């Protein structure tokens, strides 16, 4: 029995229309696909033949006013290819922006700084690491340092090395610093350093701070350092070299070469050794990249007529 086109399922007619439309576009890539489709079911061929007849007969539209008054207009703006490309571009930018905000938000794994939760953070030799605590206080860990932080970011236990705390502008923060089994409260705004070696100490950098334990409370002015375990000891004035460590530069102002070398060595696995006591005592001024020990050694050599001898074991020897 030969089926009438009207008895063929609608989806077959629709498929025939799609093939016809694609064929009219000059898409010859569908020829093989179309042949297979036509051979797959007799009804496909009947639907396709019916469509060819419709197409043929539609040429007579030229005889009626509808066909004679035809005029191809511009499509509405929202349908135009250019508008869709522009919309897709804008949508892409919006998505990219949203994704960027999401990924670099504080707390994200891609954030430029790490937001501290309950964790222990450490820095490698030569690394200066930035961490943001839960209350937005910023902590910078010096080379080869380690700190434990409680979930609220209020209790810091500096295990190794040195760190700088920068309190959010307009706020005062209170941090508990634990050292040698004792707890100390630091109340400050501005910036301050905490150090555990050679002895646990607190240095006010910007703005005064209050340091207290169970018995005492003292105030420390900017540029002063106090050993936390003996608050009554004389305060020590810190040098620019000591205060500028967060920049990654060693800022020297008539600093003994031995002190400068010790500072540089903290940031590098390549150690500089001074073979001459006379050279150790000489003083130097300037700013040096703490992560470039060889350049520093060459600068010292040039300044004082010293020799630079890299050893096979990796150290760099400075001598007169």
């Amino acid at each position, binding site marked *: 029995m030969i089926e*009438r*086109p*009207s008895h063929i399922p*609608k989806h077959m*007619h*629709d498929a*025939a*229309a*799609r093939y*016809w*439309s*694609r064929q*009219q*576009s*000059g898409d010859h890539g569908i020829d093989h696909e179309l042949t297979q489709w036509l051979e797959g079911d007799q009804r496909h061929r009947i639907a396709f033949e*019916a*469509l060819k007849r*419709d*197409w043929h*007969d*539609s*040429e*007579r*539209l*030229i*005889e*009626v006013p*509808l*066909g004679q008054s*035809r*005029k*191809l*207009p*511009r*499509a*509405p703006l929202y*349908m*135009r*290819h*250019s*508008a*869709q490309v522009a919309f897709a571009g804008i949508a892409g930018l919006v998505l990219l922006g949203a994704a960027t905000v999401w990924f670099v938000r504080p707390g994200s794994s891609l954030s430029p700084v790490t937001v501290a939760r309950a964790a222990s953070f450490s820095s490698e030799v030569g690394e200066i690491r930035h961490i943001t605590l839960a209350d937005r206080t910023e902590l910078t860990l010096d080379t080869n340092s380690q700190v434990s932080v409680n979930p609220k970011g209020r209790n810091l236990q500096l295990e190794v090395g040195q760190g700088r705390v920068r309190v959010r502008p307009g706020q005062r923060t209170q941090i508990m610093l634990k050292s040698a089994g004792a707890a100390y409260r630091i109340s400050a705004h501005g910036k301050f350093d905490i150090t555990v070696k050679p002895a646990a100490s607190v240095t006010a950098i910007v703005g005064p701070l209050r340091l207290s334990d169970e018995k005492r409370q003292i105030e420390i002015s900017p540029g002063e350092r106090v050993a936390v375990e003996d608050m009554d000891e004389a305060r020590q004035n810190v040098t620019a070299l000591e205060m500028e460590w967060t920049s990654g530069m060693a800022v020297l102002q008539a600093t003994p070469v031995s002190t400068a070398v010790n500072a540089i060595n903290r940031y590098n696995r390549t150690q500089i050794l001074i073979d001459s006591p006379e050279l150790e005592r000489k003083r130097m001024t300037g700013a040096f990249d703490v992560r470039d020990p060889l350049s520093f050694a060459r600068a010292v050599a040039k300044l004082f007529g010293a020799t630079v001898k890299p050893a096979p074991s990796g150290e760099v020897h400075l001598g007169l």
Partner: protein
Amino acid sequence: MDDAEPFAYDTITHLEARDRLVRIEAAMMTLKPLTREIFLACRLDGYSYAEIAQRTGLSVRGVEKQMSRAIKKLGRHLRADD
């Protein structure tokens, strides 16, 4: 009577063709104006999809969709009366 049969046959064929044209025209009127004009531009003026795309601002793929829509509706409308 011998001459009457071909005349009657031609008349019926002509009437059927006329009726079909009316139904095609009616099918065209069910289309959205842009879809209809795209179909007419392709069918009567012989414009390629690329040329229609350039004139309307649509993409070639967009023109193909409009054509597919028009051809489907035309077929459905004509089959409805079969």
